[in-house]
Structures are given as structure tokens and as C-alpha cells.
């Protein structure tokens, strides 16, 4: 009994920590679902290795492209300020349609999941992030899943491998499900 109580208290602490982890969560208001997802999106960049030909130049930034509808708003622009991964700056770009090669390294689409999933399968070195477990099943690489009020994600390692992307095992370790 005591152990259970302790575990739950730690979970609360963990939740608190998580809360504090994100600058967005400042003030009393609880972080919204998309605030969390924006942060995750940024952090994915840090666990993924792109082949050199994914970039236009050696010092090209890692561009996070929001395809179609933008659910994040200005929050993601604030988050990305000053952030970098593997020596490359992070930038956020909003795209009405699918980008040309070397323009985007991460593409997120809230609604055009099926199309994005297919594009990922086309073998380009772009990390495709979508919504739901089905996104992964349909060929996407990372799909957000909300479980027990927490934002989690599924990963398709085979899709990433097909796009010559290398996902860190540390990322795989925290995924809800990993399709090999």
C-alpha cells in the first residue's frame, strides 16, 4: 500500500517537473495539448540524424515545416527562438503544400495525415510527424497519441530507416509503440 502511495506521489512530482520543464507552462494556466506537441516537435530534432544531403548547405538550419493548418500559433515561434540541434539552428516554417527537397527536415501536418504518410514513404530524408496511431500505420514516422491525458507518440522505425533517417534509441525508448 505504502509503495503505491509513494508511486502516485512521484507521478505527481513527475507531472510537476514536466510542467516546469516547459517555459510555456509559466503562470497558472495548464499547458495546452499543442503547447506540449510544439515542444516535442522541437525536441525530435535533437534525437534524429539526417543524412548530409538532406540539407542545402553545411550550415543550413533544421526547418520544422507546418503543412496546412497551423494548430500551434505563435507559441511555437517563441519556443524555437535560440534553439539548435546538432549544431544547426531550428526554424519554423509554415507551408501550404508539400515542400521541395532540402527545404524542410521535419514536416508536421494535423489534417493531411494520409498524404504526408505516403510522402514519407517516398524515401526522402524528411521526418514526418502526424496525428494518431493510424498515421504511423499508414507509413508516417512519428504519430502523436493522447493517452490518459498525456501526449505520447508512436514511431515507425522502418519508415524512418527508409528515409535514411536515424532515430536515437533514447527516442525509441520513450515512444509508446515502435514499429520496427
Amino acid at each position, binding site marked *: 500500500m505504502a509503495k503505491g502511495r509513494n508511486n502516485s506521489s512521484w507521478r505527481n512530482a513527475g507531472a510537476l*517537473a514536466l510542467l*516546469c520543464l516547459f517555459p510555456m507552462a509559466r503562470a497558472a494556466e495548464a499547458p495546452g495539448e499543442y503547447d506540449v506537441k510544439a515542444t516535442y516537435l522541437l525536441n525530435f530534432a535533437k534525437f534524429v540524424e539526417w543524412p548530409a544531403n538532406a540539407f542545402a548547405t553545411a550550415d543550413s538550419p533544421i526547418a520544422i515545416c507546418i503543412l496546412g493548418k497551423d494548430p500551434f500559433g505563435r507559441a511555437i515561434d517563441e519556443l524555437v527562438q535560440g534553439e539548435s540541434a546538432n549544431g544547426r539552428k531550428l526554424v519554423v516554417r509554415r507551408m501550404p503544400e508539400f515542400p521541395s527537397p532540402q527545404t524542410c527536415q521535419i514536416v508536421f501536418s494535423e489534417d493531411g495525415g494520409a498524404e504526408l504518410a505516403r510522402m514519407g514513404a517516398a524515401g526522402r530524408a524528411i521526418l514526418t510527424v502526424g496525428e494518431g496511431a493510424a498515421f504511423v500505420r499508414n507509413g508516417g514516422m512519428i504519430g502523436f497519441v493522447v493517452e490518459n491525458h498525456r501526449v505520447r507518440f508512436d514511431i515507425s522505425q522502418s519508415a524512418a530507416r527508409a528515409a535514411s533517417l536515424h532515430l536515437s534509441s*533514447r527516442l525509441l525508448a*520513450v515512444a509508446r509503440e515502435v514499429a520496427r
Partner: protein
Amino acid sequence: MPVNARIFRNKPIRRKLLIMIMIATASALALAGAGIVVFDSLLFRSYLRRDLTALARIIADNSTGALTFGDLKAATETLTTLRARPHVASACVFGKDGILFAHYSRHNATVCPAPGAGEDIRFTTSDVVVTQPILLSGGTVGTLVLVYDLDEIGERTQLFGGIVAAVLLASSLLALLLASKVRGVIEKPISTLVRAASSVSDTGDYSIRAQKISNDELGLLADRFNEMLAGIQSRDEDLKAERERFRFMAESMPQKIFTAKPDGTVDYFNRQWTDVIGSSFEESGGWSWTQFVHPDDVEETVRLWQHSVATGELLNLEHRFRRTDGKYRWHLTSAHSMHDLNGHITMWIGSNTDIHEQKEKEDALRRANEDLQQFAYSASHDLQEPIRNVAVYSEIVARHYGARLDDDGRQFLGFLHEGGRRLATLVDDLLAYTRAGAAEPTDSPVDSLEALRNSITSLSEAIRESGAEVTWDELPDVFIGTSHLQQVFQNLIGNALKYRHDKAPRIHIAAEPQGKFCRFSVQDNGIGIDPQYKEKIFGVFKRLHHDRTYGGTGIGLAICQRVVERYGGRIWVESQPGKGSTFYFTVPRRTGTGAGAPLGSAAG
């Protein structure tokens, strides 16, 4: 410490060796043990430092994902892998802003300390705290804090302590074993030597020799000990032989011999003493011999003996010892002290010679001599009266009836008168001779020059007649009766005047100190004395010239000798016949008085 040292000093060598071996072994082991433990703890710490840094880095690395994506479960799982390291007490993952995110602890109560900045490893007495930043893409996303307990060090120390204790135990046993071997090497020769020395000391048998066991210093010691024993043995034998020699000498002496300690207690009597002490030495040793001394002599004997013992002076006395038959016999006892190099008395050796017969004869002789002297004196004295009558009356006859006598009668009367006069002189000389043996007080000094002047005055007529010249040097004060000294001078000068050539006599008197005595000399240029008569002339009635050339009674020199010997001096003559004689005599002088240069003279 001194007490401990004394206790240790009194232990047998075997125990000392054992203790020393044990101490050496134990201290070497303790040092080695301490060294190993210290070295190991240092080594272990540096190992731990590397190991824990690596471990923290791995865990931190593995926590990046979970921390980034807020996956508490994954983070906890990662931390829980530390269960494989039982000494990890707790591990915590803190967020970027220092808030605890995930936590693992071996015991629930353990709490991680708040993280510091940067990578850090800190040793406390009981644990190590490792702080490892969690890095992601060059940025810090959180901090891992690892608490590792140091029970291991204690365990290791315990382990090493156990090992050292076990080795100590084993080496102690080895040391014990070794000590018994060492005992054979060191203690056995020593105890052999000790046994030999003890038996020599107990039995006094110097023929015992120590057995040499080894060729080391102890062997050398045994050799030297044996050489020493041999030396002592030979000296002991010499001593025995010497003692035997002395005993044989002492026992075979006709005299009684004794030896005494420096304090005067007698420690040996020879066999000749048995006629006095009877049986055994025990009854008469020490001071108990005094019981055999005549009661009248005891006081003087003890006094003199004590004086000698105190001063070391020669003992010489005559006293009587009672023989076992109860009779007393006179003995001459003398004892000499023997001295060591420092002048201390080491022993006395003495003899007691039986002089009883000699003593009795001496007494008889002395009595006879005294009687004779008395007789001579009385006779001379009684003879004076009739002799004076002969002289007086022969002179009266010559004066009153000389004219009536014929020539023959006057000549015969002249013979009678001359004979009477000579008889009177003879009797006077005899009286003088007997008086020469009588004592005169001598406790005050006498001016010898005055005595000489008196003599010269008495002889002035003879000096004038012979035309003699008498001279003298400075003369000292002496201790002798005035009339005695005068008598000697008068006789010697008289002789010098009498026994002369035709030429005038020259007589010189001189004196010079000789120890306690003063030697006077009376030198003349007379007829001298044949050497064969040098002794004879001092006898009573000994005359060398019986003719009438030299008148005299033949008593003069006898008187001189009697006087001088009466005062412990002696008289003698040196002469060259025809050239003169020098008479010498010695008398006691006042010390410190020296004779000076020749001064006075008296010419006739």
C-alpha cells in the same frame, strides 16, 4: 617504559629472541597491512572516481529522452537499472530548473542532495556524490545526481585486516618455530657457556672447559673463556705450590712462625707453636693467643702489637709464653708488615724465638758483672787508704830520715815512693773505669768545646812539657754527661801527648754530624798503632808498650770505650805506624746543630 625495559632485560635470551622476532614480524606485517589498506583505499577511490563518472554519464545519457519527453516511467526504469550496483544508495534526475523529475533509491528514506552546477564528484566520509549534467545537443536539459555509499571501503579494510591478521597468526607460528631453531643457534652455546661458568664457580675446579659449538663470536667467547680458565688454572696451581712452599718453610722452621691479618688478628701458627697452644689453632687464633702470654707481659705485649698494627712499624719485644706444661719461657717476638703497591699493610709475618736459656745466661752474666764491678769499686776504694799511707809515710821518711840513710837506702825509698804513687794512679783509674759505667743525666745538651777546654786545662802541664800544639774546629752541643766527655777527651789527648816522637806533638780535634750522632776525631802526629792492634788497645790493662818509655795504667782507652758505648756510640782508630793516629768516636747530638769552620786553637 623503564619498568618495561627492566622486565625485558631480565628475561632469558630465548624469550628475548622470541619477543624480538614477534615484534619484528608483527610490525612488518602491520606496516605492510596498513600500506596495503591505504594504497588500496587510494587506488579504490581513483577507480571509483573513474567508474562512477562513467556510470553517471551513461545513466545521464540514457535519461535524456525520458527527461526531454517527460517520460517518468522511462526515466525511472533507466534509474532502476542501477539496482545492479548495490552500493548506489540513490539516484535522481533533476530538470533543467532544478526540480526533481525521477528518482531511484535503494532504501526509500535516502534522499539525493540538491544538484550543484556542472560535473562534479565529491567524496564524504560515508559516500560519494556524483553530479552529472544531462546533455542534449550541446545543451543542458537536466542533472543526474548519484549517491554511492562507501561501505565497500570498510568491507575492503575489513577484508585486508582479516588477511593481515591471518598472516600474522601464521607468521607468529612460524616465528615460534623459528625461535626454537634460533635457540639452538644462539641460546645453546650461551647456556653451555653459562653451565660451564656455573660449575667452575660452584666447584672451584678450573680444569672444566666450555664446549665450543659454533665458529662465530659465541665460539670465540667460549675459546677465550677456556683460555682464561687455563690461565686461572695454571695460576691456581702456582698459588697452591707457593702456598705449599710457604707452609713447608714455615713448618720446618725451628722458630715459632705466625701470620696475621692487617688488623692484627692472627690467622696462622706453625707446628712449633703446639708446645705453647697445645692442640688447635681455633683455640688461639685471632687475639686469644694473649692467654698464653705471662700476665706481667700481656699489657706491654698488646700495647706494642697494637702500636705496630696501627703504624706498620716493626714489632720487636721479649716476653714470656706459657708452655702446655705450665712453665713460662722467654721468647723474642718480631713481626714484619707486608705492604702492597699503595703502601697498605696486606699481612704480618712474625717469628717467636725461644731465648729462654740465652736470657738466663745473660742475667747470670749481668749479675756476675755487676758483682765484679762492685767488688772492683770497693777494692779500689778500700785500697786508696793504705796506698795513701804508703805514699805519705815514704815521703815523711824521705824528708825526716833521708839524711841518715845511705845512698842505697835513699834509692830503695825512692822505689817505694814511686811504687806507691803508681799504685795510687792505678787505683784512681780503676775507680774511673767503674764509674764510666754509671749513668749521668743527659737530657740537656752539653757544650763539647767546654769539655775540651777543661780537658786541656787538666793536661796543661803535660802540654807545656811536650811543647804540643792543640787545635780544634767549631764543636757542637752533644747529649752526653759532661764529665764523661771530658774524660774521653782527656784520655785521647793524653795518649797523643804520651805516644810521640821527639818532635812536638800536633793534635787536632774536629767534629762532623753523622745521622743522629756526632763523630769526633782526635788526630795526632805520634808513633801510630800497628793495624793488628787496632781492636786490642781498647781492652782493660792492654798495653802495647811494657817498657817504661811510655807510662800509664792501660785503662784509658777502655774507659773511653765504656763511656762511648754507654751512650750508644762507638770508638775506633785509624792509624799509620810512625806517622800518627786518628781516634774517632760518636756520641748522640742535638739535631739541627751543625759544625762550622775551624776556629779556636790553644798552643802550649
